[in-house]
Each structure stands twice: as C-alpha cells, then as structure tokens.
C-alpha cells in the first residue's frame, strides 16, 4: 500500500457524483433487453461492495483479501433467516447486515493490528474459514449446491423484475457513493488518509489508529454484506462461490483496477471487470487468457488504475496542472 491517498478536492468529487447519477439515470436508454439490465444490476451491486472496500484499501490503506466472506455471510444470513425461519425479508436483510457488521467489529479488533502481508493473510484466512463453513454446513446452507432465496418484499409488495431492481440498485449505488465521499471529506476521512500516509505520524497528532481502521473495516464489511444480501434476493439463488477466495480477489482487483482512493475508480473498476467477462465470452476458450492479458496490460501501463490515470491525462490535455 505504498501509494499516497491523494484524494480529489471536494468540488471534483461532487462533479463525479453528479456524473454518476446522470450515467445511471441515462443508462436504461442504452439497455436493450433484460439480460443487459441484469448485467447492469450486478455491476451496481459489485460497485457498492467496491466503494466500501475502497474506503478500507484506498483511503485507510488496509488490505483485505476476505471481503467475499462478508458478502457471502450477508447473502446466506438473510437467505437462511427468510427461507428457513420465515422472517420477513426486510427484517432478515437488516439483521444479516447488522450481524456481519458486529462480526467484522469482533474480528477486526485483533487482526487490524497486523500490517501488510500479515493482514492480507489474516483476512484471507477469515474469508476461507467462512467459505468452508458455508460449503460444509449443508443443513442450513444447502452445501456446495447452494440454496434458493425468497424474493425481497413486504406486506404484499414484492420487488421483482429487472427494471424495478435496476432503479433500486442504481439509487443505492448513488447513495453509497454520496455517503463515501462525504465520509472521505469529513474528519474521519482525513484521519483515514493520515493513517494511510503514516501510522506513526497520525498517532502523533492524536488519531487513534485502531479505532479508525476498525471503522473503515466495519463499514466496508457492512456494505459488502448489504450488497451480498441484495444479490441473494435479486438472483433468488446463492452458492458458496460468492463467498470464495477467488471472489475476494476479484473484489480487490476491481478496486485497484479502477484506481485506489477514488470512489469513481471503484465504480468503474466494478463495471469494467463485471462486464468484461461477459463481453469476452465471444472469444470462447480464449476468454480466460484475454481477461488475464487485459488485467496485466492495464496495470502495467496504468499502475495507478484506470480512473486516476485517465483523469490526469484529461487534465494534462486541457493544459491545466493538477
């Protein structure tokens, strides 16, 4: 985590938020059928996770290779409460997210003292433990085959159909980015960035590293669980793959690919890396090779990630120093 968390000034981030809101409002004009809506919804849900994860990785400077575990727990929590215990889905969703936040708080306290690769290992181990438990406790989770999840609804109203889901997810994404950017510009966000720069220097000016790392960790875990729970209700089916190590890696890759310390970067990273495999299916057996090559080439030539690099190129083209 060597790069400094150079954040855009508040005015630039507000511009980003307006651009995002306009993009999600206009996007349906370019979505011809249910399948494309489906992809857009998955992009939105992944983007919510990535915006949260970016607060932890890009701003507070702490790595997590286990966020798919929180995503999976959020999804299975609401699925089990709703399907096996008959809870109304809004209650099961809220309870699941709250439980994951509490768990993240309990896990985060000891492991956030670790640094660098030790923290990567600890979060990775936590993610693996979650995914093995989910795959093994088939009495509750249906095991490796997964389980079906009741649709999200309350008192006769059921959220169904791609278009309805699109607007809900789009609204939640814009709200998440708004929340994230306000946090980044708040004293707490400045504390995160200070920690990223130097933990010693930050504590010398009175920032409690443990407390602030923990808040970024819990918030990002809660957002992952929230998106996981929504994904479960939306797709109506959930498998342990969503909680797997590979999914954790995918989430981190989205954040770094789009550009760390940039909420727009997290959204763009999620959008590109969610749609890319769909687009690459035309290459059939070459799909994986292409995905790996695109990922490598982008990171080699744009080491700061897509959005910061392009943003700087744009600023340079306008002849205005940044």
């Amino acid at each position, binding site marked *: 985590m060597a790069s400094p968390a150079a954040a855009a000034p508040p005015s630039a981030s507000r511009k980003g938020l307006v651009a995002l809101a306009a993009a999600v409002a206009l996007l349906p004009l370019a979505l011809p059928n249910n399948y494309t809506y489906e992809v857009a919804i998955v992009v939105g849900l992944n983007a919510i996770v990535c915006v949260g994860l970016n607060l932890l990785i890009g701003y507070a400077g702490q790595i997590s290779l286990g966020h798919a575990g929180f995503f999976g727990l959020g999804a299975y929590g609401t699925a089990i409460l709703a399907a096996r215990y008959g809870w109304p889905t809004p209650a099961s969703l809220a309870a699941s997210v709250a439980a994951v936040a509490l768990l993240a708080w309990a896990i985060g306290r000891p492991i956030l003292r670790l640094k660098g690769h030790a923290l990567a290992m600890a979060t990775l181990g936590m993610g693996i433990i979650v995914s093995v438990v989910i795959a093994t406790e088939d009495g509750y989770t249906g095991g490796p085959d997964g389980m079906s999840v009741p649709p999200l609804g309350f008192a006769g109203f059921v959220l169904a159909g791609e278009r309805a889901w699109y607007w809900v997810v789009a609204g939640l994404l814009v709200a998440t980015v708004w929340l994230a950017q306000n946090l980044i510009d708040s004293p707490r966000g400045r504390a995160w960035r200070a920690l990223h720069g130097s933990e010693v220097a930050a504590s010398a000016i009175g920032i409690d590293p443990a407390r602030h790392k923990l808040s970024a960790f819990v918030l990002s875990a809660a957002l992952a669980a929230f998106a996981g729970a929504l994904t479960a209700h939306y797709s109506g089916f959930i498998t342990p793959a969503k909680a797997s190590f590979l999914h954790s890696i995918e989430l981190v890759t989205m954040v770094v690919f789009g550009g760390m310390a940039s909420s727009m970067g997290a959204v763009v990273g999620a959008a590109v890396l969610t749609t890319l495999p769909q687009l690459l299916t035309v290459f059939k057996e070459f*799909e994986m090779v292409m995905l790996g090559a695109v990922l490598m080439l982008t990171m080699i030539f744009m080491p700061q990630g897509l959005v910061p690099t392009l943003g700087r190129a744009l600023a340079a083209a306008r002849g205005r120093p940044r």
Partner: protein
Amino acid sequence: MSAQLVQFLLTGLTVGAIYALVALGFAIIFNASHVINFAQGEFVMIGGMAAAGCVEAGLPLPLAALVAVAGAMLVGLALEKLAVEPARGAPVVTLIIITIGASILLRGLATLVWDKKIHSVPAFSGEAPLKLGGATLLPQTLWVLGATVLTVALLWWFFNRTLTGKAILAVSHNRLAAQLMGISVRRVLLVSFGLSAALGALAGVLIAPISFTSWDVGVMLGLKGFAAAILGGMGSGPGAIIGGLALGLIEALGAGYLSSAYKDVFAFVIILAALIFLPDGLAGRRRSTERV
C-alpha cells in the same frame, strides 16, 4: 505410536514438504521485490501439467520432469521480463494485481495448451507401498521428502556459497546499498523469478503422482504455500520450511482426528492465532534484514 498416527504424520510431512517448496518460492520473490506473487501456484500447476503432457507424449519420466521444470522456469523469467519489469516503480499492490492477472492468463493458457481434464504422472518408482510400523508408505513419499531435502541443501549452498545467491541476499537486505556495490537489481529479480518458478514446478512434478493435476490446482496450492510462508514468517527461508511442514501436519492431523471437511478451517484458525500472538511468524524474532 499407533500406526494411524504414523500414517497421518507421513501424509502431513509429504504435503507439508510440497507447501514448503511453494512457500520458498514466495519467500524468494518477496525478498527480492516485496511482491507477493499470486502466480506462484500456477508454476506448480505448470510443473505437474507439463510433466503429465510430456509423459503422455511418450517422453521418459526423468526427461519429462526436467522439461517441466525448465519450461516453468522460462515462464517465470518471461513473467518478470514482460510484466514485472515494465511496471517497476508501480505501487506494490499494483504489482500484486499484475501477478493475479498473470495467474488468470496462465490458467487460461493451460486450458489451451492442455485441456480441462484431470491428468496424472506415473509414480517415480512404482506404486507398491512399503510398510512402516503398521503404516503404509508410498515410494513417492520418499521421493517428495528426499527431493525437498536435497533442494533445501542446494538452496543453502546457492545463497551462501555463490556470488549470484549472495547478490540476491544483498538486494533483499538493502536494495540501494546492493545497487551501489554494483549488483544488478534487474538480474537479481530475473534470477529470483526463475528460481521460484523452478521450485514451484518441482513441487508440482513431485506431488502430481499422489494427488493428480489439472489446470486449476494452482489456486489452492498457491494459497497454502502463501499461508505456509506467512506462518513461518514472510521472507524467511527456514521459516518457509517450518511453516510448510507445520501446515501439512496440522491439516493431516486435523483431517484425521477431527473432521476432514474442516481441515482447511483448522489450518487457518491456527494461522490466525499465530498471526495474532506471534506476528513475526514461527521463525521468531523480527529482523531488520531478512534472509532466504
């Protein structure tokens, strides 16, 4: 000791030796570049798959093993030359994502060069099990343990008795000072990637007769090797070996006595506990200089 315990210990040591080889690969690259190479597991896969492919094509086994290790080494060199070197100066996390991209690319290439089926490599000296205190011992186990011991001895010689090995150590101690002494950091990085790839491929060839091989075995083996390297203390050579053997034994004993479905959970619970209580790994004290 009961025969059952001996059996579990043997299994644990065999798997642990493989983890140790993979962990050494992680440690060597980490020391030279501070990159956690997520493509390390793919070298193991390439070793196993290339050996299986060569044997299926009619090559004698020793030659197949040699081709596999040499081939993986070339892939490692290419990875450094084509992907890591052009990105030098990038943040470490970017370099890590590059290695993740490389692992996806290599898995994809493996499905193209070979296929998505499960392959096996014949055991190096027959399948007839030996008896040891009531436990059965596959001859391949002796190959795994023997080859690991030999490799560790060779590595020790390489890092302590050759100029190239000492140059690698110098770079991992202090990159700038090494550079000022006229050591080519580029060449050190190149050698580190080649060496790590060869170690991974060797592990892949050794374990393939016992556990089979396919295009996607690298993910789990890489993960375990990474865990072993951290358990022992990242960047430490003896740590990687101790970590690997410890991880193998924990898994084998956990699977044998407690629950086979939860063997990975035991391993990672112990790693979490070790990280929280011994943050510098089993190999002990925090060192300002790290050795392989």
